[in-house]
């Protein structure tokens, strides 16, 4: 499996000077509630808490955050925790708390920056989500050139103070997603920015694992650990949704979903709704459909168990390609494959296979 092939970024993008985020008056093409479709949304979005007060899980953290931003100045924040635990939800609710409903009026932009990197110029394309007071972006999307995003673009954004600060907060917020995927260089570039422009700009960093964020950055932030919700909490949320949707929940059904969700609330709600789409009314022993790719990985695992020969190896490689083609990140595939294999393997092999899985996952995450 080759991970060395970097996605090729489109070089044909026209060249625009970096746009100054707030130097040009922004006219948001505001679509607030232009469309009100009510019920058709996915539950996971529909029942997402909009404010800190509405939070069902992590209520304590939500209250602390609220106190933090209302009573004093907001420091840089680093949210970390497993996926599906509610980091993003909390961040959005926090922004709303700070900037009011305006924070929800975001626009999506796909912007191109032309960065001068010594001998050549690099075109970077990045999707940003911005409101009048905050910008959200995932610098790691540009791959190994993320350094330039941090050095040039984030700095530029951070440098410019919001124009109209009357009656508002005197700072704006940059939300950076997936900081753990930032390259080391980018993280180093980030730390100076965090200090230098802290007067006009706060960073909210969001990542799964704080261990991949350098000490220097961690120490500059208020670290907020968001735990995965417990199964009881998940059940509580599912029951809440069920009640709102007016569904009949057989006893134990929510618990089964929660159990299968691997303590990811998002997972749980999504599979809950998948079940709903698949079959309603629920039966208590209803099959909870797995994700399509997980099913495929399970297939690979059983292929592997059945036979170990070059021929099978060849077939398995084809299937792994298939997963990669369908945009499943390799490390996720490996993790899942390990999970599936562990279910099937003899005890004495488990240790070894965990070792190798860890080794190769590290290779494909850390090294390239």
């Amino acid at each position, binding site marked *: 499996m*080759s991970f060395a092939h*970097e996605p090729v970024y489109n070089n044909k993008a026209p060249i625009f000077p970096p746009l100054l985020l707030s130097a040009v008056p922004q006219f948001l093409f505001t679509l607030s509630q*232009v469309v009100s479709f009510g019920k058709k949304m996915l539950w996971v979005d529909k029942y997402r808490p909009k404010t800190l007060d509405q939070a069902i899980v992590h209520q304590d953290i939500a209250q602390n955050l609220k106190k933090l931003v209302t009573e004093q100045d907001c420091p840089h924040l680093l949210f970390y925790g497993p996926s599906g635990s509610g980091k993003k939800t909390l961040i959005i609710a926090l922004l709303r708390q700070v900037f009011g409903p305006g924070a929800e009026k975001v626009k*999506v932009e796909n912007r191109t920056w032309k960065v001068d990197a010594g001998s050549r110029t690099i075109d970077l394309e990045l999707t940003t989500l911005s409101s009048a007071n905050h910008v959200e972006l995932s610098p790691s999307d540009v791959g190994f050139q993320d350094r330039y995003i941090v050095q040039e673009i984030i700095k530029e954004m951070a440098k410019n103070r919001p124009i109209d600060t009357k009656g508002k907060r005197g700072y704006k917020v940059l939300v950076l997603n997936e900081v753990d995927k930032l390259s080391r260089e980018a993280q180093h570039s980030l730390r100076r920015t965090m200090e230098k422009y802290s007067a006009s700009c706060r960073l909210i960093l969001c990542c799964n694992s704080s261990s991949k964020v350098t000490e220097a950055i961690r120490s500059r932030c208020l670290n907020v650990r968001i735990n995965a919700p417990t199964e009881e909490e998940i059940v509580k949320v599912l029951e809440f949704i069920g009640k709102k949707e007016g569904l009949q929940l057989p006893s134990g059904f929510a618990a089964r979903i929660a159990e299968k969700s691997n303590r990811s609330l998002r997972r749980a709600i999504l599979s809950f709704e998948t079940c709903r789409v698949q079959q309603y009314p629920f039966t208590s022993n209803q099959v909870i459909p797995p994700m399509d790719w997980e099913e495929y990985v399970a297939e690979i695992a059983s292929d592997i168990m059945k036979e170990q020969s070059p021929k099978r190896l060849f077939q398995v*490689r084809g299937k792994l390609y298939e997963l990669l083609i369908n945009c499943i990140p390799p490390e996720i595939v490996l993790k899942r494959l390990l999970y599936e294999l562990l279910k099937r393997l003899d005890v004495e092999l488990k240790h070894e296979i965990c070792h190798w899985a860890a080794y190769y996952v590290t290779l494909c995450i850390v090294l390239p």
Partner: protein
Amino acid sequence: MPQDIRKWFLKPHDKDKGNGNGSISANSAPSNSEPMNSEPFRGGKEGSGRRKTSKYFTAEKKKLDDEKGKAELPAKRKTQNDIDDSRKSPRSRKIQKVDDNDDDFVLPNEKRGSSVTPSKKLKSSSGRGVAQKSVHVDDGEEDNVKDLEPPVKPRGRGRGGRASGAPAIGRGRGGGQGGIMNFGERKDPPHKGEKEVPEGAPDCLAGLTFVISGTLDSLEREEAEDLIKRHGGRVTGSVSKKTNYLLCDEDIGGVKSTKAKELGTAFLTEDGLFDMIHASNPAKALAQDDSKKSVENVATSLPLKRSPQKVEVKSNSSASKVACESTISRASPVKKKKQNIQDSSLTWTEKHRPKVPNDIVGNQSLVNQLRNWLAHWNEQFLGSGTKQNGKKKIDPSAKKAVLLSGAPGMGKTTSAKLVTQMLGFQAIEVNASDSRGKADSKISKGIGGSNANSVKELVSNEALNSKMDRSKHPKAVLIMDEVDGMSAGDRGGVADLIASIKISKIPIICICNDRYSQKLKSLVNYCLLLSFRKPTKQQMAKRLMQIANAEGLQVNEIALEELAERVNGDMRMAINQLQYMSLSMSNIKYDDIRQRLLSSAKDEDISPFAAVDKLFGFNGGRLRMDERIDLSMSDPDLVPLLIQENYINYRPSSGGKDEMKRMSLIARAAESIGDGDIVNVQIRRYRQWQLSQTGCLASCIIPAALLHGQRETLEQGERNFNRFGGWLGKNSTMGKNLRLLEDLHVHLLASRESNSGRETLRLEYLTLLLKQLTDPLREMPKDEAVKKVVDFMNVYSISQEDFDTIVELSKFQGHGNPLEGIPPAVKAALTRAYKEDSKLRMVRAADLVTLPGKKAPKKRIAAILEPSDEGIGEENGGMLADSEEENSSDTEDPDAGNGEKMQKELQSLNSKGIEVQVELKGSESSSAKKKPAGRGKGGSASSEKKGNSGSMDKKAGRGSGAAAKRKR
């Protein structure tokens, strides 16, 4: 291996010459039918043998044993061989060695007889050889000389005989070498490597021509070819009258066998070939009686055989130069030898440079063309003699200059010089060593100094040439050599040359290597183009043979053809090689050339497939490291890719039938490929090119070294040759899918209903999204389902393309299509409904987001923009209706807008209201800039827009220009 080499030394130049000579001369006469065959008969004698210190022998032996172990010969066989050897040593067997000069190294027979088996000496021996020579030559030389006489003659005869047949054969085609790509289609020999390859007298197949067809029983085609050539036979690609045998083990009824039947060519099986070779070796035949086994063991596979030869040749030549000299002096006229000595300061390329045009190898027609052109130049362009300048008939196709092109070493410069010389022109040569910049415009200064100026002067001043008295002053020809080398220092050189050609009063001959060079693009229009082609190997061999004869070198023609082939048509290089080899040996054989040129061969283009074939091939394990590096570096991108694609298919020859071993080797190879990938990232990302050897070691050489062997198919119906790297295509599909996913992601974000990352979207949302989008279509009544799905799509700003993306990303090989079970009518209805809806609805933020890499925005969006503005502006119904009409016309060809890119920018420029700017850009300038963000400032915007909507719409529809329209 050891036994082969030892045989060498067993070989007979035994000291009891009376006996040896007797047998040789006796045998050589009868063996005239196989002219080169005389040597073998030297068996049966145990030479009185000089005793030699065995110090070297034992050391060498050890080394060889190690090698042998590496070559993975079964250990048991080795010991067996030793025993056999000791047993059969008395029947000394002869191998290719023709010269007898190595008496010096004959081993004491007593020693051989013992089971200690001293082995041979290797190249290390040269120094020692000389020393010994001083001892031995004295007593041996005289005898040697006598000894040599008989074999030499038959050899000469043999060559003569072959030579007559040679030119006719295979002139059309360069032998069956080109088969690499076909190679894969051919099945592997069914009993590959299972038979012992015989070895016989070096020239036992001399004069015979073979054609190989189909799959042989145990030999790869290359091996068979090698075997035949080694024994002096010739291998051609197609059957002709000259073909003696068609070598095939199965009658596949192809063109070759049909033709062979037609011509009555004899068919020969592989076993037959082996028998022929065996038969040539009486000693072996004798051995066969005695112990069949020993024969088999002696006959080792080809590559093993090679090294003893080399050893022998080296030691021979270096050690016994004196003997060589004497051989030569006898074989060739004495005066020739003298001449050799006189000319020895000249390189052969100079010495044997053609003296007349007919000597030029190949391209005779081009040379004639050149001569004709030059001969008629004066009449053509100067109207010389006629003085009717006004009505010169100038052939429009005639050019005043000629451009000779071709690879180096083909004799372009030589031809040019010879032709000019022959026609009595005086050649003025200007080559890359001269500055050839643009002539100084102030030519009035005269020609002093600048070469370019003197060229100009020369070219334009007729007086300097033709008007002169011809007898005293020959006409001049300007030879511009290496015109493609005009660069850096020669600014404007080519342009100036063209100018010179235009005004020239003398012929100009330009010479270049690459006619298609960018620099010469303009020049070719002014020149008669003569492209030199590679001479055929037969042509080259013929000429090389002449040279070799002139230099008193014993070379066999097959060897020269091999040489010609190896140098890839470069005559100069071939001669240089020949001269170089002549320094160390006086008798050059096929194997010497093979051996030597393996390392010094001219760089040739090798396709990645051929490289991978070689790395994984049957003797991939015997390649030297530098060869492996060369192979893997032949295309540092593709070779690793091909290796990675195909390594699973190989059954490593080291692993035997053991599947577990194979799997673990595959695992190691995979590990190494992975390492290679990491290195590759370092190279590409951080430009650490010094790692490239490490990278190719890890990604190519180690996997190939672990797994080289026989390829087998893993899938039904797969053709058994290396596939192209599948990952390359898959990677680009992945890139495309990632981009599509990003589009979907952006749309979802723009809908502001979801806030998840791209990865989360794929991993967790996608299953549910797909269900939401497809399940209703399958289960619910059509209209209801369509409505539901369209509503859902609208909530999340999912466009039709996104719908396709979701379906595409959910497809897994071996699983059903996610759209299965949805009646086409429903799909069509969905499409219709969606389109209908998108016309009516307000613009969505998602429509305004420019997507990366998407160069083909939809006209539809342009159209949609209009109603959306109105919607925001709270326009009245009438207005809406108007614009809708226009919209519908615009949307009729939603896909036609490919070339266009819509850029919309709304900017408020003053406080009074809003000025709307719509920019339509050509797709070249496309891309994300500032997104159209926006709603104007509420009420004030509305009034402004109201009046504009109509015209805006038109503009959007018109859409191609880059003009930015500004409206009030």
